[in-house]
């Protein structure tokens, strides 16, 4: 019996097609996985299945009947419930009130608080959630908050629940408890659509899996009949090959970035790595692997709980960005809009922000020298702009990223850390960006590229894989894509990971 179907769904946002005649069908009582890389169209499908957005074409049905109109929120909520990645709990209200928000039981027009607390307690008991309804929701742990959301979802009477990356913010024990709960609910006939970047979880808790790639449906198959490698191949397709810049090996230079036993609670644990001068090292991992937090710690944006970062022989004060820069670090932040650029300032000012000391004496930045430095950078990195005075907000994504890179390299760093350097950048800019990085490495800079895209690290001499806060694999040049992606998604780490759980 089919519980939910979405057929032939197409959804466009302006020029981009988020879903292209894609579809999914779930049978009643199954836990169905939906996987795909970033931008595959998963989130769009979720918003269409929950009635938050209308598909351009295509039909959604629940139990064989067409979906209610978009305005009928209650109708949707009786059919489908979703636990989003982003919490929809209101932190300032109590758990009980969150459970019955906007449907509090009234007596003679006034909210019956005692009754609400009692019913909230019953609801939480029924699903075995040991939380007192009078607790303020902001005091809950991530896991507890998620359980409250699941209990609330079920209380609307929906028998179909979408879990959008529910495990991303949970630790291993909490994930196992969540799965146990999902199995119990499945036994009582609840249908799940489970979205995760961790393929191992798909094999653990799901019966069937659907793969989306580039806005299209690729395959749907029972997980038993789909080996890991085939699943990974379905997700990635044929990996495009980027021409690698000619660059000699450099494994004997001095160590310019030395990370020893770095630990930050809930983010990463006991991470050690070293990068030598002239070497390019890749660090890949999924969003929850802790790789970005590690990069931020190296740059001094976060302060580690333990361990040391040594840059070109000096150990800057932990948690100090100027300290890291003075020690010789170049840093290209993950989100260039939030951390990288001041959008209303000119290209010149943004590009020379880290080298103002060289632009004049006693804190004065001479405009002529700034201009000169900026013009050199614009030429060197092939930044397409009307000139150093153009505000960076007017640049395309790739060119804006080149400004950030030019700035990171402007101070002739000994070590360079780049986080997702090609995110949101078109193919050609990607190549010229990576070529600029390879050029810097050839000139003797030690480069650490932190990314979740394999293409970014294709030129690297070695690649490290992070999973759940630890480095789980180190591969020298000539690695096998499938095995690296497997490690990123936790398939390779499965043996050790699961043993840990089974104890």
């Amino acid at each position, binding site marked *: 019996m089919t519980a939910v179907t979405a057929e032939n769904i197409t959804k466009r946002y302006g020029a981009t097609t988020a879903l292209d005649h894609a579809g999914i069908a779930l049978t009643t009582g199954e836990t169905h996985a939906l996987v795909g890389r970033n931008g595959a169209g998963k989130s769009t499908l979720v918003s269409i299945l929950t009635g938050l957005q209308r598909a351009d074409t295509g039909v959604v049905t629940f139990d064989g009947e067409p979906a209610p109109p978009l305005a009928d929120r209650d109708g949707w909520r009786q059919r489908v419930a979703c636990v989003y990645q982003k919490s929809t709990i209101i932190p300032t209200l109590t758990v009980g009130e969150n459970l019955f928000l906007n449907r509090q039981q009234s007596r003679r027009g006034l909210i019956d608080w005692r009754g609400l607390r009692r019913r909230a307690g019953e609801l939480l008991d029924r699903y075995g959630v040991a939380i007192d309804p009078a*607790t303020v929701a902001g005091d809950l742990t991530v896991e507890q908050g998620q359980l409250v959301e699941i209990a609330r979802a079920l209380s609307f009477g929906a028998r179909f629940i979408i879990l959008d990356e529910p495990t991303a913010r949970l630790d291993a024990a909490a994930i196992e408890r969540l799965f146990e709960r999902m199995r119990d609910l499945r036994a009582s006939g609840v249908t799940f659509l489970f979205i995760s970047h961790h393929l191992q979880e798909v094999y653990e808790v799901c019966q069937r899996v659907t793969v989306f790639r580039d806005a299209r449906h690729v395959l749907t198959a029972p997980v038993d009949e789909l080996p890991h490698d085939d699943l990974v191949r379905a997700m990635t397709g044929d990996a495009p090959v980027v021409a690698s810049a000619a660059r000699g090996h450099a494994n004997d230079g001095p160590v310019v970035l030395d990370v020893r036993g770095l630990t930050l609670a809930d983010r990463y644990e006991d991470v050690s790595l070293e990068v030598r001068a002239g070497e390019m090292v890749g660090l890949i991992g999924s969003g929850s692997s802790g790789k970005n937090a590690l990069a931020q710690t190296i740059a001094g944006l976060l302060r580690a709980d333990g361990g040391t970062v040594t840059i070109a022989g000096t150990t800057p004060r932990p948690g100090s960005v100027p300290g890291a820069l003075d020690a010789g670090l170049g840093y290209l932040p993950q989100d260039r809009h939030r951390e990288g650029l001041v959008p209303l300032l000119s290209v010149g000012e943004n590009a020379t922000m880290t080298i103002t000391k060289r632009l004049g004496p006693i804190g004065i930045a001479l405009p002529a020298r700034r201009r000169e430095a900026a013009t050199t950078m614009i030429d060197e990195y092939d930044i397409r702009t009307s000139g150093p005075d153009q505000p960076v907000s007017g640049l395309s994504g790739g060119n804006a990223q080149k400004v950030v890179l030019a700035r990171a390299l402007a101070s002739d760093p000994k070590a360079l850390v780049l986080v997702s350097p090609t995110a949101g950048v078109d193919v050609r800019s990607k190549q010229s960006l990576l070529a600029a990085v390879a050029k810097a490495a050839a000139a003797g800079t030690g480069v650490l590229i932190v990314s979740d895209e394999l293409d970014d690290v294709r030129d690297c001499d070695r690649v490290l894989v992070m999973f759940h806060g630890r480095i789980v694999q180190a591969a020298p040049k000539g690695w096998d894509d499938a095995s690296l992606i497997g490690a990123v998604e936790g398939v390779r780490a499965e043996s050790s990971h699961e043993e840990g759980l089974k104890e």
Partner: protein
Amino acid sequence: MTGTPTVATAPAKPRPRLRLARFRDLALVPAIVVLLVVGAIIDPVFLSKANLVNVLQQQTELSLLVLAEAIILIAGKFDLSLESTIGLAPALALGLVIPSASHGLGTEWPTALAIPLCLLTGAVIGAFNGLLILRFRLSAFIVTLGMLIVLRGLQIGLTGGQNLFDIPPSVLYLGNATWLGLPASIWICAILFAAGILALSFLRAGRAVYAIGGNVDAARAAGIRTDRVVWIVLIIGGLLAALAGLLMTGRLGSVAAAQGQGMIFTVFAAAVIGGVSLDGGKGTLFGALCGVLVLGLINNILTLGGVSAQWIQAIYGAIILAALILARLTSGKAQD
């Protein structure tokens, strides 16, 4: 994989937390008691009924503005224009009913319309703020700052910068009448605060205000019509400010061109001292009321204590800052 259906979470401690939340509400009550004691020591006149009633009556207009602002802040918005509404609403209403010889607009509508017109003006101002903030998605802070200036300018333009006298008795009544031994304005404030406290704690719409201020996306996901609720809150804010204008006009017997000017700072201070968060979603009207009382008592004690008129403002401001610091320390959370 031997998980049991029950989650092994640390057992929550509900009772203490609940009490703590209640305690936060009552945090200013000891401060009020201390002020009463200090006042009594400084001047025996302080505890007399006449003085206390006087303090309360002087705070009625402020307290209505604080009531309005607290609800708006809890909903996660701002309204700075309340301090101009308190002047413009009665000025416009009176201008339409009094003869041009008394600086009226010359329309000389029936005087019975004065009160409805005043309240209507307040509601329209609130609705217009809502239009700019919700429809055109402008920042509430800047919109209401602009409105503050525009409305004050309108009042000066309409009245030619003159104070309006010749107030009809119906308008004078609310600010002067005595009901059951207490000024009517005190009763009105008490009733409105009681109604507000009840509504925000026991009505679904009231809880929606907290939900919107706490997390507007989650509120929308729960089916709350967030824009509509905020719009109504802004209209109620304008209404309350207009009512405060009526009380002030009645009490003073005229509408000054600068009626209400500068009040908004005290309004915010009272709300924040009373535990209302500028981030939205947090705070209670009872707390806000306590904030008003604390400021009123401090003002009165400074006056009775013989602080010279030239210095009273600086000292009053310093005490507000000290109270904010204390509130920050007791709540333990940053205010921004």
